[in-house]
């Protein structure tokens, strides 16, 4: 399946959705005015991916900041991954800066709300 790479801007994240190399990562900042539009192709990709996933799926969130409208789109992605995790190995790696307790809390919140394995990684 085709990979989807979106370069970062000052208010949208870098997105790497690479099936062949098993690399799925969303990083940097996500504060777009219209998060629904930005995440639509990302969510489409996850939908396609779920039809024919790799044997192990690792999704890395390395966000520096995200706004609440992005939070909902991330929730959508996590719901897709929860569905995928019913029959597949899925791991979410949630990175947070040691100086950003809110990013840590956000990850913990998600991990309690969806049935997917989370690993929390602190960045110094």
């Amino acid at each position, binding site marked *: 399946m085709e990979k989807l790479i979106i370069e970062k801007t*000052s*208010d949208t994240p870098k997105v790497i959705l690479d099936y062949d190399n098993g690399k799925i990562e969303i990083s940097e900042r996500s*504060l*777009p*005015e219209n998060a*629904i539009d930005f995440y639509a192709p990302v969510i489409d990709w996850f939908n396609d991916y779920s039809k024919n996933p790799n044997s192990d799926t690792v999704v890395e969130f390395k966000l520096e*900041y995200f*706004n*609440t*409208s992005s*939070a*909902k789109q991330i*929730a*959508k992605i996590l*719901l897709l991954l929860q569905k995928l995790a019913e029959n597949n190995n899925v791991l979410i790696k949630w990175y947070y*800066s040691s*100086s*950003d*307790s*809110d*990013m840590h809390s956000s990850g913990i*919140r998600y991990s309690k*709300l969806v049935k997917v394995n989370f690993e929390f990684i602190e960045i110094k």
Partner: protein
Amino acid sequence: MATTEFENLKFSLSLFDAMQKDNLSYVYRGFFNQQITDSILSLTEVNLQTEEQSSKMKKRVYAIMVEGLQNITRHQNDTANKNIQSTHGLFIIKRNEDKYYITTGNATDKKSIPVITKLIEKINSLDKDELKVYYKQVLNEGELSDKGGAGLGLIDMARKSGNKLSYRFIDINENDTYFYLHTIPTLKDLSTDFNKVAKDSLDNIVEIHNTLNKEDIRLIYNGVMNQESLKGLLQTIEGHLSDSADQKNKMFYIVMEMLQNIVKHASNPNNEEGGNPGIFFISENNGKHLLTAGNYMKNEHVKELNDKIKYVNNLSDKEMDDYYNHSLFDFEIDDSKKAGLGIIDLRLKSGNKIGHFLKEIDNNYTFFSLQIQI
């Protein structure tokens, strides 16, 4: 109409009055560095782009700002008393009708008064052509101060403004004085009433500065609220060195949500292009930051927002958590204009109730302002 949780209420109202009068104002008071300077320039650029028709004027305003900001950065440490509030550097730009008023301020040693006065008086005594000659002369003779050419900067500001430089010294204590430099760039010659205009507007700036010091206000933005100005304001917050990393992060999140709320929900009574008008300011109070944002909204939406804030403010921690989780996975309201997750996020991240204040303007619009303490 006001809630008791709202602090600087009087100040918010006076800002609101100013908002109706001025098309743009930006105030920053504190420590200046490259990031702060860049953020101020990019914020002003957003407003210049949307408002200013003349590209000649745009360039002049920009050039004067660059010089002025460099001056503050260079001279902000010219006083021994760095820790007292009244010595913070100051940058103010205001736009009223067709005129821009650009002011920089910094504390300096009283001993430098004669040197600065002599230089500005010399510049002000020269006409356009003489200034050009003088600029070259200073450049060639290398008559630079040890700080790297403040003299040239002043000459350049005078040339770009097309008017005389206004200035004032106001004593801080027995050793220090506060130096204000005030520039009003115009394309037409204003010389007949210029002195009066400049004196009045500088009086007004000094008065504003007193309020800023008294209320410990760090930043005021009054202008177009769109995604670009939001990014500019966030950049200012990142450049704000005095805060700890954790507090800076928190501030970033909260300002982002407050302003995005304006970008998405504000109305525009004047139908200006490029975004809705809004104000935002940061003040400090006993080590706490007060963040205040205000905008116009249609009267018919006021009750809903008001109810929502009251509802969120009255939730217990547990209820708030549940409500947040519910909203996070409620994709139905994605496309609506309902303020769901944003409002509750403000309360959750700040750990405080949301202050709010409203004032009905006419049959169609209300000025609505939110305040968060962190």
